């Protein structure tokens, strides 16, 4: 056996375990969801093994039976989730970009400390942190007391149980997801390029637009994708900070699997989310390829 052959075989042997793991524990459940989405709900949860296309009909428009009726509200909830997730990504970028820049310019010891601080919230339960936000945002909470104390408002504003609260909460939860890829690309930025750009007479804004932004774009795109995906399917934040009144697609899916005992419809809704995420990933792939070609 040639050396290169042996290397290939070693590689295959090494990759066999993770591949099998992914096949069983990633594609397996996914396949179950695909199959379930074409079945009839069991009366007590679970599924009856009878084919049905009505789960998709309820979302997309052709179902019209006593229990399965088309309702545009499902697509509306989906669009609303897309909007809330997009706004979350935007606020995450706006907060994380300057922060990542600032931290990357710190002395090394402080820099590591700062990165540690960014990831620190992960050490505390998400539910506990979200309830802390309830205390901040509620009518008698710290935010309203602060605003009234400063004389900016005369009576408490409604923050809690609104879209605003959900976006604040999701931004708070997903900032580390955005920060880390951004930081990785900003840290790699070659400061001599910036100096060259300034020396050649570019304004600060021109330097940012023509040099800094293109160089850090992969970080922005990467961070946006991994922030967008969990935001889109999130159901804990809208439940706690949106008071379950700001319904996102994740809440709707949770409802189907638990209180409504309609697993097939829940699976069909989950497929909708997955289709959206797949489209996004394909677009990202294409974008990454074009930026690479340009570079």
């Amino acid at each position, binding site marked *: 056996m040639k050396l290169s052959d042996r290397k290939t075989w070693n590689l295959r042997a090494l990759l066999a375990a993770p591949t099998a793991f992914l096949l069983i524990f990633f594609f397996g459940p996914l396949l179950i969801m695909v199959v379930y989405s074409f079945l009839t709900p069991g*009366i007590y949860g679970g599924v009856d093994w009878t084919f049905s296309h009505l789960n998709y009909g309820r979302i997309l428009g052709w179902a019209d039976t006593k*229990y399965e009726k088309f309702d545009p*509200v499902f697509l509306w909830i989906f669009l609303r989730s897309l909007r809330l997730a997009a706004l979350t990504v935007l606020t995450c970028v706006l907060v994380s970009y300057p922060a990542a820049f600032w931290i990357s310019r710190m002395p090394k010891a402080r820099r590591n400390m700062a990165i540690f601080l960014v990831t620190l919230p992960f050490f505390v339960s998400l*539910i506990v942190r979200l309830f802390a936000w309830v205390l901040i945002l*509620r009518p008698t*909470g710290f935010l309203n007391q602060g605003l009234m104390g400063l004389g900016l408002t005369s009576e408490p504003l409604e923050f809690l149980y609104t879209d605003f609260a959900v976006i604040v909460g999701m931004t708070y939860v997903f900032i580390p997801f955005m920060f880390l890829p951004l930081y990785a690309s900003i840290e790699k930025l070659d400061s001599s390029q910036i100096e060259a750009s300034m020396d050649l007479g570019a304004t600060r804004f021109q330097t940012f637009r023509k040099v800094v932004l293109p160089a850090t774009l992969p970080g922005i795109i990467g961070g946006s994708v991994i922030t967008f995906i969990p935001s889109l399917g999130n159901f804990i934040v809208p439940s706690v900070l949106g*008071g379950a*009144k700001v319904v996102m697609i994740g809440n709707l899916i949770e409802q189907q699997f638990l209180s*409504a*005992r309609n697993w097939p419809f829940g699976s069909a809704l989950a497929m909708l989310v997955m289709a959206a995420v797949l489209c996004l990933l394909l677009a990202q792939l294409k974008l990454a390829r074009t930026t690479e070609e340009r570079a």
Partner: protein
Amino acid sequence: MTKSPLLSAVFAVAPALVPAFAQAEGELNLYNWGDYINPAVLEKFTAETGIKVTLDTYGSNEEMLAKIQAGATGYDIVFPSVHMHDIMYQLGLLAETNIGAHPEFKNIDPQFIRAETDPEAKYCLPYAWGNVGIVYNKAEAGELKGWADFFALAESGKKVVVLDDLRETIGIGHIMNGTSVNSTDEAEVAAAAQYVVDNIEAVSAFSYDSIPLVTSGDVAAAHWYVGANIFVAENPDILGYVIPEEGATMYQEDICVLKSAPNYDNAVKFMEFYLKPEIAALNVEQQMNGTPNIPAQALIPSEIASNPTIYPAQDMLDKLQIFVDLGRDLQLYNSEWTRIKTAQ
């Protein structure tokens, strides 16, 4: 009956891992609603029998059923609501215990043997019951009497919280329209949901975690369980609890042994232990809910026994409706619930 599904979801991962080594003799694994049994009852059981008790919790009947159906083994006893008791019987998940033939079973008021599939209590023991009413902030809501007052708070710019539970909240509409909370008539269900939609302006959230918001006055009142009396007793000047004069729903849970129970004998011992009036009374003392155990009612503290929101008079009792399982017709409520949640 009263815990946030979110909080219990945090702990939901752990129980799946525990049962593997929970088979040794002298153990008993309970799977109950959060905060739904007085810890002193479990301590007393361990002191008397030497059986070590572990307790895991869930936030809804559906969550418990889904876990058991998914094959969670290691649990001995569950506490389903009456309609879930019926479902679990039909799915063959329950073990026969013949608790109804036990001499001490005479303590149990027969009207609480409610499960249609278990008329002789061959399987489960009626555990506890209570009503679902309104907890309110006295300064914000004034003396509130019922659902009409509750939703009228919107007129003075006040807000309320209703339960994030499709049957309970659409049930309010049924009560106000004079239809059964178990209606499976499409038009009646739609009309009940419409009642909630028409009053949506008053509703700031759908949530189980409303007590702190009512106490702080952030919302004026909330749709909540009789267990709110625990908080009323702590803050009698701030909070009040009322069974709405128009009517309300009630719930009852039963103690059931699972067919897959690894400690069947200990589970039956626990059921027999719970038949004792002093044990049922000890539970009520902390839970502030109803017990079907007749001699126990003479042993509970008088401020609980004489509280009409916990032990209502017969005319109010007659206005309480209990949920039955709707089978496929639950889907009618499911669609309406989404409509309510997205009404602005």
